[in-house]
């Protein structure tokens, strides 16, 4: 009797040969997608992918895209208007940095990146990363040396530096807007702009007075200037090298209101309400008491009929009566 030989077929995974083919395909498809991303820097959506690679299997496309996302070669974002999903090329692949710097430095980098526009304090980096203070300082110095991050003087925390990525523009809350340079409050600049605004309002008021024959209402209404107009005039004068926004001018004008020199009135112009300003006179030219030495005397509290400070031998009176 003869034995039947049964040759067992080994189970061959059919997918594997396709897998390797797939791998090759994948890299090719990756390259093509990256090329597309470069071609359309504003971003591509699924539709564009379909039109360019119509034969692509959806599963493969999804795999490739996921790969690229994990490698951080591309990123997903939403279009601001339509909230549609777009793919974009990630210009700064962090993975490259990963090769150059240490793992710890990488951690610090990521924390700083997350802080974005507003930057992050030394202390906060320490809290988030859990690293040693000296280590962090060393890393920060190294990163600054490589021009990957920079430090900016923050006004809110009184001369403390915040760190942010090198290319980012610091947010206004950190630098304090136009009034602060290097974390210092520019009081001379504020004073100059202050005086300019006041002078402009004075000129307007004087021009308005020429119309006195038309009645006081015309004179008063003609002496108003809106904050936009003032901003425009100041920009035209080129006192400052950069442009001042309307909000900043309004802040200056508010200080003039608090000086008692001008008053503000809201006027509705079409749909919006705008602020207009004009010069006002004080109710009294000066409180009468300040015309005698006692009104402005710094030691009035201790002045009396006996003792060191008396009106009889008061030096301020002597000066005043001469």
């Amino acid at each position, binding site marked *: 009797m003869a034995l039947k030989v049964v040759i067992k077929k080994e189970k061959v995974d059919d997918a594997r040969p396709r897998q390797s083919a797939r791998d090759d395909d994948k890299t090719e498809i990756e390259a093509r997608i990256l090329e597309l991303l470069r071609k359309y820097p504003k971003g591509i959506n699924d539709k564009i992918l379909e039109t360019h690679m119509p034969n692509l299997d959806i599963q493969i496309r999804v795999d490739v895209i996921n790969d690229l996302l994990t490698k951080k070669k591309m990123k997903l974002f939403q279009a601001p208007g339509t909230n549609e999903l777009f793919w974009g090329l990630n210009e700064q692949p962090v993975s490259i940095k990963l090769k150059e710097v240490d793992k710890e430095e990488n951690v610090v980098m990521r924390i700083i990146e997350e802080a974005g526009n507003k930057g992050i304090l030394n202390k906060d980096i320490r809290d988030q990363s859990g690293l040693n203070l000296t280590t962090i300082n060393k890393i920060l110095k190294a990163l600054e040396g490589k021009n990957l991050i920079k430090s900016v003087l923050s006004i809110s925390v009184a001369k403390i530096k915040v760190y942010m990525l090198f290319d980012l523009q610091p947010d206004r809350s950190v630098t304090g807007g136009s009034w602060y340079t290097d974390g210092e409050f520019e009081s001379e600049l504020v004073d100059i702009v202050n005086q300019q605004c006041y002078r402009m309002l004075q000129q307007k008021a004087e021009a308005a007075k020429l119309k006195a024959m038309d009645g006081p209402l015309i*004179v008063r209404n003609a002496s108003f200037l809106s904050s936009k107009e003032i901003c425009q005039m100041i920009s035209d004068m080129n006192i400052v090298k950069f442009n001042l926004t309307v909000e900043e001018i309004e802040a200056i004008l508010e200080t003039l209101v608090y000086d008692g020199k001008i008053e503000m009135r809201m006027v509705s112009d079409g749909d919006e309400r705008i602020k207009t300003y004009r010069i006002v006179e004080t109710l009294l030219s000066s409180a*009468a008491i300040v015309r005698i030495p006692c009104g402005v005397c710094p030691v009035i509290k201790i002045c009396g009929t006996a003792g060191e400070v008396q009106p009889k031998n008061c030096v301020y009176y002597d000066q005043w009566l001469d």
Partner: protein
Amino acid sequence: MEKLSAKSDPIYLGEAIVKKALAVMIQHNLVKFQASERNNNVAEYSMMHHNVYCLIRYPKYLYMIKRIYGTSEEILLEILLNLGQASASNVIFHSANRLNEANDSEVLSPSALHQSFQRLAQDNFIIRCPKLAENATLLKVPTLEIEEKEKFAVPNVEIEPIARMLKEKATQLGGHCDSEIIWRVNHERFDIELRNVILVNAAARRVDTTAGELYHLILKLWRESSNPDSPATTPVSYNVIKDAVRKNDSSPILLEHFDHYLRVLHEDSAGLIDKPGDAGGGQFNLDYSKVFENLACASLDSIVLERFGSKALRLFRLTRIQKFMEQDQMQNVAMIPAKEAKMFTYKLLEHNFLQIKELKKGTSNFAPVKSFILYHVDLPQVVRTVLEASYKGLFNAMVRQMHDLTENKRLLEKHAMLESMLERLKGDDGVPEEEIAELSDTMHPAEKSLVEKIHLMSDNLTLGQTQADETILILESYLKFKSKEL
């Protein structure tokens, strides 16, 4: 109410002198009396503070009356101020005498003066003193009373006896028919007038002088229709104001732009005119408490400005307008560098212009409790502090003046004697010029210049006192109307 017990006081003046002093003060409206609560037969004397204070304002009263009416009314008022309380005939008689001394050419008829007197009474500048009550003679301490409608009623004055006395160059008017009806100066009316001057000036500064004119007219209308003690005037309608403007022969610009002026004054943030309603074309009144709050704030602002500087003023106004502020907020909104802002804030705090309110941020029991420190301006308190300082300033000016004059008393007396002698000699024509020259040389030119200087200093101090008085008026009015509104 002080009961003056002369015998136990260290300055024992003697009863007769004390009685005379009291009588003089009562005559001049500085002291009043009434029956004691415990014992009806004993009188208690009390001081009328406001009237004593108003002594310093007498020159201002004369100037105002002269400006509003003329010389004869001014003289009438001066005589009345000198006499304290007097009957109409007496006042007219003495004024006529004074005027005749001044200019010998014209002899003023008493009837003209009588008319001036009536004018003063009509406008309430002078007021009748209360007279003896009906059963007063029965009581040991008489009571005085007067009816509302009699307060400004001028009695019939017999001109004839007065004219006769004047011709005879008498110094005293004898008995006359209205000797029982006695008048005195009405201080409240003058206060109103002084306040009106300040308000009109404020209106003129805010808009222009024509607006000041209009405001003056409106103030007059308000005064005529309102009760002087109320915190706001009774409303006056648009038509009434317009009529008054037309009747008053005002400047043509005012007539032409009357609506505009009224509107601009009404819309001004100082609160010079309020519009409570629209009846009769618009009802307008004045809220004294609001206007005087603004004026008091303006005075305080000016004082802070002169004492501490413009940055401190900004911080002060900011805190006052925003009610409560933190230190950081103040320095951000005011755009003042941090260090300076802190310095000025603490200076204002030290001199009681700013007050502090602490609110605790109560959190855990373990951590030290943090608190919000808020700055605010407690306006009545600040006004009271500054008012006290102003009184002190006024007092200092007076003390200094007295001191200067008494120190150089001898010199001044010598100078005065010399001047009077020179006057007399110049009057007699027969004296040769050398004698005059010799006499004037008895005083060294340095001494003469010193006397000049002393007179100048004294004048400056008097002016200074009137200035202090002006601020005091504003601050006192604010406190008075503030307490009324509550």
